[in-house]
Structures are given as structure tokens and as C-alpha cells.
């Protein structure tokens, strides 16, 4: 494993969690330098709306596994990233394509159909 791979690994990843957590360094390598469609959920564990969305997003991540990657950023910890992307509340989903923001959704309905639509619409994924 090379240095960049080591630094991008996050300690919050655990078996059964299909949504890796990112810090500022891993955000740079996995999102901004990442290829293809990527969705990032800006969330915090104390936000009940994020808690309601969690199982739905896990299901969506599993469904889209081969076509789109989904990550999470904890805004209570990563204040710099939250500020940089103008996050006003949680959950906020930002979609990136080749490192560029291509879509954003704030507080979407926590159901699978809505969530699938939100994270795939900017990329035209069916």
C-alpha cells in the first residue's frame, strides 16, 4: 500500500458500513482527485435527520456500489470542509464529478426512491 492510500484510509470505516467517513486529507484524495460520480453526505451524528437518513443512504450505497461512490463528512469535526462548501445545515448531499461539484441537495426526504434520485440525477445514472 503506498503513502497516498494509507493516508486516505479512515479509521471510522468498519464492516457493514458502506459509507466511508472522510477527513480533510482523505476528502482531497478520494473526492477532489477521485474519478467518476461521487456523492458526499455532510452530516453530524447528533442530527436526528441524518440518523433517519442513514439506513436509507446505506441501502442506496449498496445499490449503486459499482456505479457511484458515497462518502460522509462529519461537519462537527471537519469544520473547515463545512465552511469551504458553505454547509448551512445537515444533512447536505453534494455530488462531485471528477472533483467538481455538479449538484447539491439539502435535507432530502429520507426514503430510498428520493435518495436514489438525488444522488444519481446529476450524473444521469439509471
Amino acid at each position: 500500500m503506498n503513502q497516498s492510500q494509507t493516508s486516505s484510509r479512515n479509521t471510522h470505516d468498519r464492516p457493514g458500513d458502506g459509507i466511508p467517513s472522510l477527513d480533510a486529507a482523505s476528502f482531497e484524495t478520494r473526492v477532489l482527485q477521485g474519478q467518476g460520480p461521487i456523492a458526499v453526505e455532510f452530516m453530524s451524528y447528533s442530527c436526528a435527520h441524518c440518523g433517519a437518513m442513514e439506513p436509507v443512504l446505506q441501502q442506496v450505497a449498496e445499490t449503486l456500489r459499482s456505479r457511484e461512490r458515497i462518502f460522509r463528512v462529519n461537519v462537527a469535526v471537519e469544520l473547515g470542509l463545512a465552511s469551504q462548501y458553505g454547509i448551512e445545515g445537515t444533512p447536505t448531499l453534494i455530488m462531485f464529478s471528477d472533483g467538481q461539484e455538479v449538484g447539491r441537495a439539502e435535507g432530502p426526504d429520507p426514503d430510498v426512491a428520493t435518495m436514489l434520485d438525488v444522488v444519481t440525477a446529476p450524473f444521469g445514472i439509471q
Partner: protein
Amino acid sequence: MMGTGNAGVVARQSTPILLFDDECAVCRRMARWVGSVACNAIGERTIDVRPIGEDPEALRKLDPTLDIWKVYAKSHLLMPDGTILVAGEAVAEVLRRSPGMAWCAWLFSVRVFGMRPFQGLLDLGYVILSDVRPIFGCKSCGAPALWARPFVWLVKTARRLTGSKPPARRPHFTPLPATGDAASRQPPPPRR
């Protein structure tokens, strides 16, 4: 005593640990109250009151079975023997271990035909308080339960009529606390 038994518990201190949601105003008030009453005659704390925080790993160091989402959803009391008490059971145990409140705690152990009616009432009270927390200013508590929505609406309407209108909220969105320094926000990085 009911609770979630836990064999894989990590070394734990001798005082029970009450984990509370530091983002919820109601929970903060409750935790402050527990902190003030849970002291023995020589001033030692009988319950260690701690905010849950935002680090799932730190929580799992307390107990590997703890899931941070579940801990935020209900009060958790980590007992020295590895048991975890949740919701109304945690409240009853907190009362038992608070010298000033122990007089009423025996009620929750009373059994009638194998049932614990007072514990049942406490559990119900816990659920009701948990569901109506948004009325008391908890911005992180999520959407109120279905039964509580008319009450939330009434409170919002009353606030609007009295001039103390709360800011409009999107239904599934928790606004971040205002930093008071919006101008210092950096713009998004330049697009490549």
C-alpha cells in the same frame, strides 16, 4: 434489572456513565440536573455524566457494542458490570443512584402480577418527553413524532402570534448553529 448484557466489554470504571446528547437543549438541562443530584454524602459523583460527542471510535472504546446512532436516539447508562440500560430503565437507575431521589426509585421495581406498572409509566413518560423535545428548542432532534405534531404546530402558531416567530425550517434539515461570522466563510474552491 433489564438491559443489554455485554460480554465483550472493555475495562470500565466503577461509576456508571450516563451518555447524553449535548446538542439537545432538553438533554443538556437533564444532564446538568443529574450532575447536581448524583453525588453521595462526601461529594463524590455516583454517576459520570458525559456528552456523546461525534467520534464513533471513542464511543466503541467505552463499549464495543455501542452504535453512535442508537446512543443519540435514546439515553444510555453504562453500568460497571457491563450492562447497558436504555431509555426509561436508564432513568430509573439514575434515580436509584441519586441520593436525593432514591426515595422514589423503589417504585420502579414494584411488581404487580409480574408487571412493573411504575416502570411502564416511566417508559411512557420518557417516550413522550423524547417526542416533544422539538417544542422545547431541540434543533437536532429531528421531525416530531406523528402524535406530537399538532402540539408542535400549536406552539409554533402561538410563537408566531406573539411575535417570537421561529425561523422557517425545511422538514428534514437541521440548521447548523450560527457562527456569527458568515463573511469569513471561504468560497468554494475554484473549478478546474
